[in-house]
């Protein structure tokens, strides 16, 4: 009995944390151990991982409201990202330099996110049961539509438009001079020459994570979870199911918009046209790896999932690259990140609660 106890405890831990997460975490740990042997600077690697975590975390958080209301995983994240891109470009058009432009961008993206999210929510209410498939195509088609709009919209800030024609937005626009590192540099802590903690960005995420966590503890948030858990029960308790679902979609869309702005301020560029096309999959994968299921997700799932996913995607190419001494980083990055997505999607139905 005494010998069995620690084993039982261990089993309990594996069951509650989930075997896939333990394996991925151990793999990530081994990459950090291998890094100095392969000649990769651990400080830089850790710094990169933290950075990428901060860049992506809010977009992963954008999955949570829709999962809770039973709309499934938000494959239509590109729609939110488009709202964010509109906010970003309008902010640059207004041409106020410095970090203030970041908050302007959030301000400008909000009406777009609300309107697009509302329409997207109405659509999803008409296709109950098939949300995720429809959402994917909402994302894809909105990207295609915006490819036309980016050329036609009357932007004229010289930093944004094509130099030779003077009209139509470029595919990548630098945010230097506007909100580059607006959050990253806020209160950032330089521990060593290579290890910088982007405090501002992490705090910004923590703030949003807190808001969502708190929201889920309110009356409306409770209703949202119940709608996702059993819509008939919710209806029999007097809940307007469609309205709650629409609210969750609007929230997800707006978080997607804010998420891409955070991503841009760290990355340094606004990526238009096909940029948003594949943004949904890494976010979906991250939350699944974090232990969420199609109708259950927590903030902890977001944090763990984003860290593991981004950690692997950051570390594998650099370590592997140094070990085999050829420049394969891009190939490895694509193989690893898509492999992670594939793995995560196969685990879609397996819920860890």
């Amino acid at each position: 009995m005494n010998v069995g106890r620690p084993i039982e405890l261990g089993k309990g831990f594996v069951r509650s944390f989930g075997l896939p997460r333990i394996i991925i975490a151990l793999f990530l740990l081994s990459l950090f151990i291998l890094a100095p042997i392969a000649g990769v600077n651990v400080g830089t690697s850790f710094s990169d991982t933290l950075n990428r975590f901060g860049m992506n975390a809010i977009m992963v958080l954008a999955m949570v409201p829709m999962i809770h209301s039973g709309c499934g995983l938000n494959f239509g994240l590109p729609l939110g990202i488009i709202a964010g891109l509109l906010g970003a470009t309008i902010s640059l058009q207004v041409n106020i330099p410095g970090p203030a432009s970041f908050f302007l961008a959030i301000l400008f993206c909000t009406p777009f996110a609300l309107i697009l999210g509302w329409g997207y929510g109405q659509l999803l209410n008409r296709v109950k049961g098939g949300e995720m498939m429809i959402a994917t195509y909402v994302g894809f088609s909105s990207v295609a539509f915006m490819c036309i709009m980016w050329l036609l919209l009357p932007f004229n800030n010289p930093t944004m438009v094509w130099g030779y024609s003077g009209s139509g937005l470029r595919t990548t626009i630098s945010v230097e001079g506007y909100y580059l590192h607006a959050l990253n540099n806020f209160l950032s802590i330089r521990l060593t020459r290579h290890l910088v903690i982007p405090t501002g960005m992490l705090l910004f995420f923590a703030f949003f994570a807190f808001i969502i966590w708190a929201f889920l503890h309110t009356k409306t948030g409770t209703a949202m979870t119940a709608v996702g858990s059993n819509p008939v029960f919710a209806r029999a308790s007097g809940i307007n199911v469609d309205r709650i679902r629409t609210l969750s979609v609007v929230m997800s869309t707006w978080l997607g918009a804010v998420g891409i702005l955070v991503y841009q301020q760290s990355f340094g560029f606004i990526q238009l046209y096909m940029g948003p096309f594949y943004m949904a999959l890494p976010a979906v994968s991250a939350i699944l790896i974090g232990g969420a299921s199609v109708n259950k997700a927590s903030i902890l799932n977001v944090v763990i999932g984003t860290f593991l996913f981004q950690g692997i995607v950051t570390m594998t190419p650099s370590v592997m690259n140094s070990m085999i001494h050829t420049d394969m980083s891009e190939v490895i990055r694509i193989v690893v990140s898509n492999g992670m997505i594939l793995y995560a999607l196969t685990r879609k139905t397996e819920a860890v609660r």
Partner: protein
Amino acid sequence: MSVHDVPLLEMKHISKDFFGNQVLNDINFSLKRGEILGLVGENGAGKSTLMKILFGMDEIHQTGGYGGDVLIEGTKVSFASPSDALARGIGMVHQEFSLLPDFTATENIMLNREPLTYTWLSEVFGPRMNVLNRKEMDAIAKAAIGRLNVKLDHQMLVSEMPVGHKQFTEIARELSKEASETSEGIKLLVLDEPTAVLSEQEADSLLSSIKRLSEAGIAIIFITHRLQEIIDVCDTIMVMRDGMIIKTVPAQGVAVTDIAHWMVGRQVDTSKREVRTFDYGSSPVILSLQNLWVNMPGETVRDVTLDVHKGEILGIGGMAGQGKLGIPNGAMGLFPAGGTVTFEGQQIMLNNPRNFLDAGMAFVSEDRRGVGLLLDESLEWNVAFTAMQVQEKFLKKYLGGLIQWRDQQQIEEETASYVKQLEIRCVSTKQKAKELSGGNQQKVCLAKAFAVNPKLLFVSEPTRGIDVGAKALVLKALRTYNEESGTTIVMISSELEELRSICDRIAIISDGKVFGTLPATAPSAEFGLLMVGQASTQDWGGAV
């Protein structure tokens, strides 16, 4: 020793635990050819687990197998899957129907065992191109239905059948499994609550066909919560409690109360009722239904006009499919409905559950798992949710009501008090609703309704699929609630005796209309007449 001296089935020292939790303990019994064994026990007594062991279900293998031996005709067997059990002539009819709705009875009965005809296409493309031999299929299906001696159109689509016919189709399917090269003919049939969904006549004809089958030499294990049926039809009664066999007795001379007593280990009197006289003169009408129609599939309400008096317990009875379930579902707005519903003088707009709830009514649905519960959430959530959303209970308000925060402590306390009051058996109030047994889930549904402090409570089939002990508790809880808080209760049930035990008067619904209303003290024969569509000749003074 001839084959006939060896018991058909023997189970010796069967034990089973799920992760250290002992659910079956040293089970021993044997079953002869043609014997009908009635297996009774409370929910969670281990009946289903025992049957799962017999059938070699995956669930058993995945959780570490079982202890003891299963012997069929004297040889030890251990089935790796239910299809192995089928091959040895053991069939099972499940509580839930496993039928294809868009296929006819014949097609369902013969599914995957159809006799085939060889055609010239098979010559070219192989046996996959054989066609079904419809004539022979019909003949076999008819023969199987014939053995049941029921009227069942073998060409009818399952989706169009009344629920009883579906049950007969399932049984006919098991019966049609004659000896072939891959399997032996059916020798043992396990019926898991076959009468739960049937009306009384249907149940009667099922019971008589069970007897006929046993005369033909087929042994039957009959699981049911309706104890009278067990006594009527079985040769032997086996009572299980807490994973052990408490009693194995011949059915002759056993009384329902004895079985109930063995099952729950305490005295339960199902027939006892306190007659009370309700004063209709001084209590006003609280709810009035005028020309209510409800489009609920299978339970259509056509034209119901009914007054409910403040403080009474009104029973609504009738056969399955006549529309009694449609009344609360329509009044609440879960199904499209029309007509006038007036509550305390205010007309309630139909088709929106919110109006119904805001008026101060509550509904405990007959569909516990579908409508009644959040299966994946804790008991706390289940109990508190409706009250929180409709009446803003269990909320702490900040910033002048802008933030409405869930009051976890209050939810926990209230849930704990209901757990104690209604004797809900659970590990903690954080346990998920789906992990509870049927009876306890029903109590959670009641707690949910009690938490909103309704002025009027609709309870639909509160005792469906739950055992005797839980049934008595649920009924008692309703009566107590009615007496202590003065809440008007409208209870819908297919079990007349149950209605008569707690109601003041009972309305019988037939063909979507109120066929008659009688006081609960009227003799049951009168109700029986109403149910089969004959008006009472005597005035019992029930219609007020």
